[in-house]
């Protein structure tokens, strides 16, 4: 059973039933990413419309992956990342930034803040899968 395999590393399968949190202030993008994740096989995708809501959800539930936009209010994705990495209970949560912020300074700042991967918009399903694979492993 693929779902029962709980291995780690890039050459091992991941638990496709793990909750994935998608964070974006645009409903359209939430829907797009959620649909893409479901098409990729992730069964349990939840949504949040900004960093504050996402952080609240993460403190109440455990997520196997967070995919977040950057430009949101009142809490940006960058601030969310900083808070997640500063929280002992959340700091090891895989975090991928999906954003239109494409300047070098943004990428460097996110990397220094501990983001696991970074996708610039617009992106396609193949890129999303590639980056998730790079972070979590093959699936």
């Amino acid at each position: 059973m693929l779902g029962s395999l709980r291995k780690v590393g890039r050459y091992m399968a991941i638990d496709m039933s793990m909750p994935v949190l998608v964070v974006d202030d645009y409903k359209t993008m939430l829907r797009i990413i959620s649909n893409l994740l479901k098409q990729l096989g992730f069964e349990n995708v939840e949504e949040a419309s900004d960093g504050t809501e996402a952080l609240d959800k993460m403190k109440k539930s455990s997520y196997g992956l967070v995919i977040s936009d950057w430009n949101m209010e009142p809490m940006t994705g960058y601030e969310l990342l900083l808070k997640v990495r500063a929280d002992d209970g959340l700091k090891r949560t895989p975090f991928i930034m999906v954003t239109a912020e494409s300047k070098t300074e943004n990428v460097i700042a996110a990397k220094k803040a501990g983001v696991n991967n970074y996708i610039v918009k617009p992106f396609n399903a193949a890129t999303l899968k590639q980056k998730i694979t790079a972070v979590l492993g093959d699936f």
Partner: protein
Amino acid sequence: MALPASKTPESQGGTGYAPDGFDPAMVGELEPKLINLMQQSEALVALMRGFFQQLDKRRSEEFSIIAGYIAKAKEEIREMRPHDISQERIPTAGAELEAITRDTENATHTIMNCAEAMMGFSIDQFGGDAGAYKTAVDDEVMKIFEACSFQDITGQRVSKVVNVLKQIEERVGRLANTLGVEDSAPQEMTAEEKRRHDLLLNGPAIGGPETKQDAIDAMFDTGFDEVQPYEAPVKPDALAAKTPTAPTVKPAAKAPEPKPVPKPAPAAVAAPAPKPAPAPAPKVAAPEAESNSQDDIDALFDIPAEDMGKTNSQDDIDALFD
């Protein structure tokens, strides 16, 4: 006690009379001097009156000039029609932009609904009838085409907003030229501007991402060992065996240490390349091996401030994630 009045001799310049209680001799001595003082005072007053009349005339002319300038500036501002701008044109432009957001969102949802519907179609739903299946698909596709008409409406709305901005630009420019006004020194950022600057809220770039996905990928390592698999403990032995490139990312709040990247950014880096290593760095082993020094890692982030906004190719960025 009143003393008898006495007379000051006129020959002595007096009025011939001394107030009661005063020594006539003293009065006689002082009175001419007092009269002289009064005469001098009158002369001084006349002089000052003349001076202030001149001054008033000059000031009056200057004030007239200033009043004329103010009247002209008011006329120019009136011609700019500021109330029309603030109460009509800008609100209209704002409404157009909101409509653009609404229209594009609606169209996107329509398109996604149709796409989801088609993905859910199966030939069995149509009793194996390929013709019916195709008809259903075509119907959904037509809805997609119809929804795409949002681009035409959106384009027209954007044109209206651009026209408003041009009118404002033209009026403000004309006012500034007429008044001979030049820009002041750059003002200190407002609190909101500073916040947006500090949080790197630049927004999407014109013409597509400034840093392509490949370049971003180049910046990242896979870094599996720092990732917490969902509900599965991370086994260091398994990581050491399976993840040859396994750097560690510390929490950002605690001065994060950059991960050791196996190789420096490739020569194709369009963006500011970090200080290159003397030779291609070897693949990073497990964290314990520490085959790259912190200086090597720091060099990857040592980008001059003026280069921070430059564009990188996707390959360059991808290299940082390898």
